[in-house]
């Protein structure tokens, strides 16, 4: 195609300049500044002394960092795989329905995903309320002893994971449905002519063909849940935040409660690296899988 290179470059520059200004300011600069900050003992706002790797070495033996790290890992384990599994099962059920019925049922499953986290928090705080929560009446009926769920350390993470699955599942369901729709009906028709039973049909046809979507959903969830903060913060109010620390929460505590910008930045860099490594690994795995096809 005939192109006027100089004019095209000029137009391109005009088109990308607002973006470059915004990204330079809100992405590139803060990223560099964060790494820089992590090597100093600066408070949240204001200058600090260069302390080298001190902020990092201190993390190694720190109890709160330990809690935050393992809680994050625990939360990821509780939410990612079960969440993917639940979404797949629901998507399989929803895909059996057709027309308006399907749209309605899908809307019921998807609606929570649309809600702000604070609304989700209010709904479940109320539903699981120790005194008046409707769930507790159900507990009573089944003869289970009532527990103040978000005030009990053993219950806290599983409950938050449960609420998180409820909240974000709609998104995964949507992806699974798209994946299921992409499987041509002829394949099922051919299989049923071969007298394939329901279970075999799932195991030998649906599951392998759905595998790429499953991998996609799992990794999106994984990266998302590593960054958990909102739910943990909200459900901890009035509870025991120090036992329920997760990494982003810890960054928040160090920076905004303890006013230690440098030390907070070190935690941020660690989380940053974890997420980047997971993303890159995931990217490479996807590429590998592509190539094997």
């Amino acid at each position: 195609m005939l192109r006027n290179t100089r004019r095209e470059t000029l137009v391109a520059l005009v088109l990308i300049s607002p973006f470059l200004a915004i990204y330079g300011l809100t992405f590139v600069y803060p990223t560099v500044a964060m790494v820089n900050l992590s090597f100093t003992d600066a408070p949240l706002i204001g200058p600090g002394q260069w302390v080298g790797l001190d902020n990092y070495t201190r993390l190694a033996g720190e109890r709160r960092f330990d809690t935050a790290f393992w809680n994050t890992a625990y939360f990821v384990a509780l939410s990612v795989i079960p969440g993917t599994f639940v979404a797949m099962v629901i998507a399989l059920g929803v895909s059996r329905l057709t027309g308006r019925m399907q749209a309605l049922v899908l809307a019921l499953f998807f609606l929570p995903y649309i809600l702000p986290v604070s609304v989700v928090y209010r709904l479940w705080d109320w539903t699981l309320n120790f005194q008046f929560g409707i769930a507790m009446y159900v507990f009573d009926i089944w003869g289970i002893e009532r527990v103040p769920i978000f005030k009990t350390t053993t219950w806290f993470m599983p409950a938050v994971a449960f609420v998180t699955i409820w909240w974000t599942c709609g998104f995964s369901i949507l992806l699974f449905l798209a994946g299921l729709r992409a499987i041509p009906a002829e394949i099922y028709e051919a299989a049923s002519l071969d007298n394939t039973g329901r279970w075999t049909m799932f195991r030998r046809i649906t599951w392998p063909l759905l595998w790429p979507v499953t991998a996609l959903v799992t990794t999106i969830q994984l990266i998302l849940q590593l960054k958990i903060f909102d739910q943990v913060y909200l459900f901890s109010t009035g509870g025991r935040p120090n036992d329920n620390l997760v990494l982003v929460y810890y960054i928040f505590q160090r920076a905004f409660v303890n006013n230690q910008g440098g030390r907070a930045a070190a935690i941020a860099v660690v989380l940053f690296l974890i997420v980047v490594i997971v993303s890159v690994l995931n990217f490479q795995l996807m590429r590998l899988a592509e190539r094997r096809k």
Partner: protein
Amino acid sequence: MTASSARQINLVGGIITLLTLIIAILWAFPIYWGIVSSLKPENEVVRPYIELWPETLTFEHYIFALTETQIGRWYINSIATAVGATILTISTSMLVGYALSQLRFPLRRPLYWLILASFMVPTQTLIINHFVLVANMGLLNTWAGIILPQLINPVVIIVYKQFFDQVPRDFREAAVMDNAGEFRILFKVYMPMNWGVTTALAIVTFIWSWNSFLWPFLAVTKTEMMTITVGITQVSDAFGVYYASQLAAAVLAGLPVALAYLLFQRRVTQAITLSAGIKG
């Protein structure tokens, strides 16, 4: 296959369908329960048994929330910041997506890599420096300060780029033959061709922005500048431990996005599927 085994399979299928319906109803039940509870008088809310419909239907908690609290103010803040973030995100992303897809210019590849890289970077880790930045600019407790870090939204750029990539080359050539300049090609040919995608992306960007919690929570310290998602959880004095009032406020906070979804269901699902295809 014999008739009886066919019937058996249909029975199994029926049970699965029935189960799906039951689970769907249970799934949405907490939302229903929250709404119903917000419509009961406070004394009815705390009755020690399950009442699926209020004995006395009341809107007193909504009237209370709207008149006695700052919720109206928070609404304005939420609308202003969400609309602002949406307009800015969509317009800048569309231009970049177009440039990446249709124009050849130096640094095109590095720019693309920068955008892909920003996918991987968790914005939650940047909160410290976003705060320092916004504080230094004197934008804490302002709409601009709330909006600024929300503009990192590479998904929208990539969706646009991929959309523009899919437009057959013929259109561009026809426009060139029609004497249209670069800007006319963008604004008269390519942009109008993708109103559907733009609507879808705008709706989800609005929802994402409305729902964002961590950053607005940090960037605002004055109650009158809070967005509604932050306000309803942070200013508990306004509601006390009156569950019904709290729930009424929550319903009000969730209403705009829920409505946006229910009205534009197809667009929302389209945008979500599009954006997810890229995140992988």
